[in-house]
């Protein structure tokens, strides 16, 4: 069986700035992985390059369930099954969440499950009062994350990348987000959580932890890797990689 996500030799740069220097990563279906690393190590870049943001020169391979997505436009990657929950979700003034989800359905006519997933995700995440409001406009940090999790539920991807889903949240909100992520775990989905704190991992069982420093994955292991980092921080890796 294909892994949900398989990344090999992924590089990315902007002008002379090399940001990703050869990332290899495999996330099997049904698993939740964490990518940890200090600020500026390239974590958000990884998720944007996978999603196809045009700012970067990228090379290498990324497959969703065996299908190569590098080179595809952003929307085709989404329809191939990739979902990025943004660290800073963009505000779309004048467009309600309901309008967005109905356009998502219209853009993907082969999938007739949108209406049912809108109802289910809306119930599960208590989204009723947000659905008529403009996408991400005037929402608190926690509400934005919730809204992203809602869209993830509606999109029903094969791979979900959650970028700093825990940043800027108080501890209760972190717990809540952790529970939402936990409830995503399913045989048809691979999840990647990007974070620079190990905090959220206390409330969440992850299968593997990858440490990213200087645009490379420098260590991969079980949940114990996060515990080590909590004690020692990234110093060891930063020193080694420079």
């Amino acid at each position, binding site marked *: 069986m294909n892994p949900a996500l398989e990344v090999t030799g992924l590089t990315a740069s902007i002008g002379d700035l090399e940001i990703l220097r050869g990332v290899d990563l495999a996330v099997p279906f049904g698993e939740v992985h964490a990518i940890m690393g200090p600020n500026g190590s390239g974590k958000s870049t990884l998720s944007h390059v996978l*999603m196809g*943001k*045009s700012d970067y020169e990228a090379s290498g391979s990324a497959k969703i369930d065996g299908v190569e997505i590098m080179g595809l*436009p*952003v*929307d085709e*990657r*989404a*329809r191939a099954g990739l*979902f*990025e929950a*943004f660290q800073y*979700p*963009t505000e*779309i*003034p*004048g*467009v309600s969440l309901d*309008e*967005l989800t109905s*356009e*998502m359905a*219209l*853009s*993907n006519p082969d999938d007739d499950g949108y209406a049912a997933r809108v109802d289910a995700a809306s119930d599960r995440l208590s989204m009723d009062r947000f659905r008529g409001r*403009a996408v991400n406009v005037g929402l608190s940090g926690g509400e934005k994350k919730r809204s992203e999790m809602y*869209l993830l539920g509606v*999109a029903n991807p094969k791979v979900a990348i959650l970028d700093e889903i825990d940043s800027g949240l108080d501890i209760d909100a972190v717990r809540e987000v952790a529970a939402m992520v936990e409830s995503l775990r399913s045989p048809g989905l691979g999840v990647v959580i990007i974070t620079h704190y190990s905090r959220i991992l206390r409330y969440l069982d992850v299968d593997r932890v990858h440490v990213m420093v200087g645009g490379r994955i420098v260590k991969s292991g079980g949940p114990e890797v996060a515990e080590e980092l909590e004690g020692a921080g990234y110093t060891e890796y930063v020193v080694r990689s420079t």
Partner: protein
Amino acid sequence: MTTADTIGSSDAAWMAERRSAASTALATLSMPSPREEIWRYLDLDFDPGLAAAATEPGDTAPPDAVMSGWEGSFISVVDGFVVSEGVGTASASESEVALPDDGDLFSTASRAFAPGAALIGKGLLDTPVFVDVQSTGTATSFPGVHVDVPAGSDATVLVRYRSTTGEPATVVPTVTATVGDNARLTLTVIQDWNYRTRAMGRGVVSLGRDAGLTLTEVGLGGLVGRLHLDVDFVGRGSHAKVYGAYFGEEDQTLDYRYFMNHIGTDTRCDMFLKGAVEDDALSVFTGLIRIEESGQKTESFQTNRNLILSPGASAQSVPNLEILANDVKCGHGSSVGPLDEDQRYYLMSRGLTPERADRLQVHGFFEEVIDVIPDDSVADWVRTRINDKYVTAQQEGRV
């Protein structure tokens, strides 16, 4: 309230005198020059057809889609002539007070030729009024609408301009309103001429003490769709919300010159215009907030945002302030640019095709203004019209 009631004999004499003076003055006037600030950016190299001014109304066209959901009364003005039963025209003195003589060719021609503005006042204002202003052929016409909101009352008026044929014409429309003390006026103006018609519009609204105005202008049609608007905040505590939405395509010019004149103390204005242009269209917004020495405690803000949807399209956006009082709050913002890349990326990351992503962004851009149009069925009609224009341009590869 018939024509006979409002134009008494002395009034008629005054009007005749004013007409003849204007005709004389007209002989010495030529087209305004784009070197004058108020006409800047405009192509004024055309014949306004003053020799062919309409002398009678053409055939009245039947109601159309935008009128079907309207709950209120209708008044028709055809080629400048009020054709509805029981609707009079503003008296000479009312017109004189409501509409200043700008001294230029169009203002003077209007004084020489306009048959008289449809008078919408007490009695007619009990229900919302839809004024259907039609241009039926090539004749130059001078339609006027004068709204007189008595003190303490509430009025809703919509003025919709349209061409009933595809013929080119010059139209010099005027909208004037006096809003009495403690009165409120909700005025919506929809400019929907055919793409061969040049409309050189003029508007003046005067607000009494604590009077309120919500004015929304929707610019859709016209080879030239111009509105030179003054809102005079005369009464203490008078306040207005001035909204605008315009969408230009082909070789249209949509031209807005907005002057907010704060004369009374404690007055407040929020102005918010949004426009988009595609193909070779041009939009112009020049806004002036002028606060007189007497206008202390005024708060006045203006924002104009423009989307450029094709490489050949352009927008001029020039907000200005002129403040003679020292205890006021003012601000202005303006922007001209293409669709937002971050929004497109975000929407596409949710699986939207680029076409749908851009359509949704354009829809959202206008929603902040369309959402405030007081009549839901009119708002829906405007929404659909703008969406259709953009979708057609997408399908034809013009954006």
